[in-house]
């Protein structure tokens, strides 16, 4: 059997293996690419100290999952114009939030907990990711993540930092059926509430200025104040002066009802105040009796307390304080109701006041005195209506500016409370190039391994079925297979077939025993191999002392020379000198007319010439 030579197995089919592996690798690449996902990730960090205690700036629990809440996602869908294309839920399911723990803080926490001390630590840095399919692409993943964080930053500020609203509640107020005085009261209240909110903002950040609107909260507050001081006051005074109303009866009823409600509320507050006083007395009495009040100014706590425990911004009121505050609040509510009643009476007096010009008609009329007898009433009413309309327009514009400024402020606060540590980066969920390279390598190893196994199996099969065990040459079956394979192919130039037959083999077997015959065949085999040497020849033992040598890249003369050398070698043999060997040699080379294997073989048979190797005769001579 042939030696185990790896290169021999690979040499022939290596190009096929490479081509197959390349094609298969492309298939793997295509499959990986199409099933791959793009993951956009950004690292964010909550800057507020409270975040490490798991709390938002307001003291509420900080829930990072709000980043992928439907409130945020639905706004993203709207903003990106994805409505109808993507469902909010499908996008939420692709979001991922991974906390990054600070190793030092975790170690500190564990050490404290081991000592039995309380230590709260929650991660305040997170990786926020969004996955997009290969069809959607890397840019889609990055854009969605950017939009999600944009919206979240704004909502975080709105919910946990900049919580006070400054909304326009008076838009189109004049289109409802409010009386003039009611409209003005609503406008005044709205401005007052807005001013309260704006002053809070000013206190937080005095010099904050929106780049979009170019205004600061202080300027907005000045604008609202100016309108209140000039336009609102002017309209109020005009309404009072000219008793301008849409319906005197309704107006009087409204304010009378308000007075009645105040009275009822006062009675209720009075009763509550008395109850609170009783509770306070009972509380103090009980505390005194239980010895809880025996604390002198010399009392000092035993342990040292950390400052941050005192600085904790929580509710520090005790029950006693709460009772006192409750007493104060109830009394304040009652007193303010009394003042409001005085204000209502002032309104009622203003609108029921008779100048005397109407001759007392207004007392029993559904119209005010001015409506009945003031010649300027109609003009004043028209002026008030126009004034309110103009005021509402100006306020609406101002509210729009406030809203825009506030929105930008929310974004600004969001970005200052949450910082970005690493901007959105996109990576593939599977490293396609790496896995493709691994696949190529694996396929090559597999194919080469397969080729070696198959090659070796071929060797074994060849040895069993296509090798003559006496000569170790290929056998007749191999020659048949060869001829069949070459049937439809043309032979290359330089192919030479050589046939060598031991013609008296049967005689040798009979005369000298079969063993001698076999030894002579082996000798022939050895000499053939020696003489053909390194030429590109395939040796076949056709049985019955017949050899076929198929030589490529050679010519007739060369093979003829080889066979001449063979004959000389045979004639100079040292073994079986007494045996006369008769043999025939036939050589044929490819030409135009014999380019097929069978033709060339028959040509070789045709060209056979007889030779005899008789050493006895030589010795005698």
């Amino acid at each position, binding site marked *: 059997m042939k030696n185990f030579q790896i290169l021999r197995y690979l040499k022939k089919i290596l190009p096929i293996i490479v081509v197959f592996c390349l094609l298969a690798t492309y298939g793997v690449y295509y499959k990986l690419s199409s099933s791959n996902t793009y993951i956009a990730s950004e690292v964010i960090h909550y800057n507020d100290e409270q975040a490490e205690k798991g709390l938002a700036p307001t003291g509420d629990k900080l829930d990072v999952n709000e980043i992928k809440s439907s409130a945020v996602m639905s706004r993203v869908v709207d903003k990106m114009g994805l409505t109808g294309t993507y469902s909010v839920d499908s996008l939420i399911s692709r979001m991922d939030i991974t906390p990054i723990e600070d190793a030092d803080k975790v170690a500190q926490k564990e050490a404290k907990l081991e000592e039995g001390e309380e230590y709260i630590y929650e991660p305040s840095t997170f990786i926020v990711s969004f996955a997009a399919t290969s069809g959607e692409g890397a840019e889609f993943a990055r854009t969605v993540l950017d939009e999600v964080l944009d919206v979240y930053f704004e909502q975080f500020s709105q919910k946990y930092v900049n919580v006070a609203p400054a909304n326009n509640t008076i838009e189109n107020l004049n289109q409802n059926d409010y009386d003039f005085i009611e409209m003005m009261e609503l406008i005044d209240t709205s401005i007052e509430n807005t001013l309260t909110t704006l002053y809070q903002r000013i206190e937080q950040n005095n010099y904050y200025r*929106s780049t979009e*609107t170019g205004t600061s909260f*202080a300027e907005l507050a000045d604008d609202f104040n100016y309108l209140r001081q000039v336009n609102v006051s002017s309209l109020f005074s005009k309404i009072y002066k000219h008793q301008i109303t849409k319906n005197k009866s309704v107006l009087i009823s409204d304010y009378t009802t308000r007075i009645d409600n105040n009275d009822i509320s006062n009675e209720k507050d009075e009763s509550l105040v008395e109850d609170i006083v009783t509770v306070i007395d009972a509380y103090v009495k009980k505390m005194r009796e239980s010895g809880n009040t025996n604390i002198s100014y010399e009392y000092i706590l035993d342990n*040292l307390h950390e400052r941050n425990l005192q600085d904790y911004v929580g509710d520090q009121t005790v029950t006693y304080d709460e009772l006192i505050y409750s007493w104060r609040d109830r009394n304040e509510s009652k007193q303010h109701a009394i003042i409001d009643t005085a*204000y209502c009476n002032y309104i009622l007096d203003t609108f029921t006041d008779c100048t005397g010009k109407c001759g007392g008609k207004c007392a029993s009329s559904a119209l005010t005195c001015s409506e009945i007898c003031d010649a300027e009433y109609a003009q004043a009413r028209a002026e008030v209506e126009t004034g309110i309309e103009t005021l509402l327009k100006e306020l609406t514009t101002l509210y729009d500016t406030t809203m825009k400024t506030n929105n930008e402020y929310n974004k600004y606060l969001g970005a200052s409370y949450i910082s*970005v540590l690493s901007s959105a980066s996109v990576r593939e969920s599977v490293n396609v190039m790496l896995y493709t390279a691994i696949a190529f390598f694996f396929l090559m190893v597999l194919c080469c391994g397969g080729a070696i196994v198959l090659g070796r199996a071929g060797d074994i099969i060849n040895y069993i079925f296509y090798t003559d065990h006496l000569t170790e040459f290929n056998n007749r079956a191999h020659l048949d297979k060869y001829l069949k394979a070459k049937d439809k192919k*043309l032979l290359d130039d330089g192919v030479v077939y050589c046939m060598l037959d031991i013609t008296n083999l049967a005689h040798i077997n009979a005369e000298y025993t079969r063993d001698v015959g076999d030894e002579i065949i082996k000798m022939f085999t050895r000499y053939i191999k020696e003489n053909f040497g390194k030429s590109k020849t395939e040796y076949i033992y056709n049985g019955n002392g017949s050899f076929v040598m198929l030589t490529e890249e050679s010519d007739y003369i060369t093979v003829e020379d080889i066979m001449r050398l063979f004959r000389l070698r045979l004639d100079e043999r040292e073994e079986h000198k007494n045996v006369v060997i008769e043999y025939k040699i036939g050589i044929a080379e490819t030409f135009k007319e014999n380019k097929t294997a069978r033709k060339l073989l028959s040509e070789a048979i045709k060209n056979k010439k007889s030779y005899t190797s008789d050493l006895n005769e030589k010795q005698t001579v």
Partner: protein
Amino acid sequence: MFTDMLQNLITNTLPAMLTGILQKLLLLIFALLLLVAIVRIAMRINNVNRTERTQIFKTAEYLNAWILLVCFVTTILFGFLNHFEMKKSVHAIVSLNYSEASQALNSNGTRYNMAEIISDEVVEKAIEKGALEDVTVKQLKNCLVVYPCVQGGVGDESQYHISTEFAVEYHASKDTAHLDSENVIKLITSAYKEYYIEKYTDNFSIDAEKPEFENMEYMDIVSYFDKETMAILNYLYGMAGKNPSFVTESGSTFNSIAGKVHQFKETQLNQNLKSLILQNGIAREKNEYVDRLLYHNKNVDFDRQKNEVSYQLCNKAIDMYSEEMTRVVLVPTWDQAGKYYMGRTKVGVDELSVMATNFSNYVASNEKEIMDNKLIIDKISANKKNEETYASADSLVESIYSSIKAFEKEAINAGREYSRHKMNQCVAVSIYGVSLMSELKSIVLFAAFAYVTLVLRKISKCFPKKA
């Protein structure tokens, strides 16, 4: 309209599309020729033996004049078509040059979002700016891609990176084939610069419209001027807070301009104009204005009463505290500097005292407002109209208005100068068209492809049809 569309189709869209089609057609023809040659060789290869095959390849006319000529002509044609095709794709780099960019922030402190570079607003602005025809925002947006030039990772801290340079790529589609690519990318980046400056850089909104002073009460004019000067001061103090040492080309600082405005406000507004109006009781509609002040005083008085009540209730609440319940406890503690001190527990009395003080301040403020208004009412009521005083007041109003506008302009100019200095134009843009090298590369590759195809075609014909 239809005629215009047709004309545009013929003059712009079709030629642009035609170059693409012709280029692809040329490539297709050569690809087909190559395929035919390969198939022919494959089919006839068994008709010759290896020696003959080698001979065919050895004796082939590799420098055949026709092959070289056809190759040369088609390469020229391809190069010409390729130039137009490559011109359809351009890219630009947008760099953020301000300090906040390294924290992934806009210059106003809000979060930076790269997607805004190709947002609907920017694309719409670009279309308007360039008066681009027959293209919608969506069509143009679909041709644009934006991505960071360098991106970090999230694996560990060493990979963290904040991108400050972004590439914008434009690849023309059939809807935008009629547009000049370089012009489009220039328009997009220029529109983004404008959008960014408009939205994110320091801005000071000014009341551009001059109020009708002749219809306003004099005291209202004072309030208006007060409001305007406060806005300028607010802006200047804000800018000074950002960089107090910044000196403009004219040698001013924000604080020095603010000082001038403040001084002007105190002298011209609060002293000169206000005093003139007050002491002479100047009013346009005397009765109406007095009525307004009376109403205002009434209203403020209601507020005063409420504040007074709250103040008294806070005091009463403090009185109510039982002496035994207000004793404090001393808490040994340390401050932020690590020094020890004795803290004391807070009780409600402390907070109520603070509240009482606040209400007392409100009451005082209400009373002052009422008294101020009463003074104005008294002065106006006692006034006898003097035309000269009115004329003098009107002239002073005009002069103050002009001065305020001048201050406003000075403040804005200083602010802009600071923005230029600080942000170095905030957004810089570089545009990259088609490079000569990449064009040459394509041409050389095509020439090689064409040559191989034509030679193989010629060789394939040398293989005999039969053995």
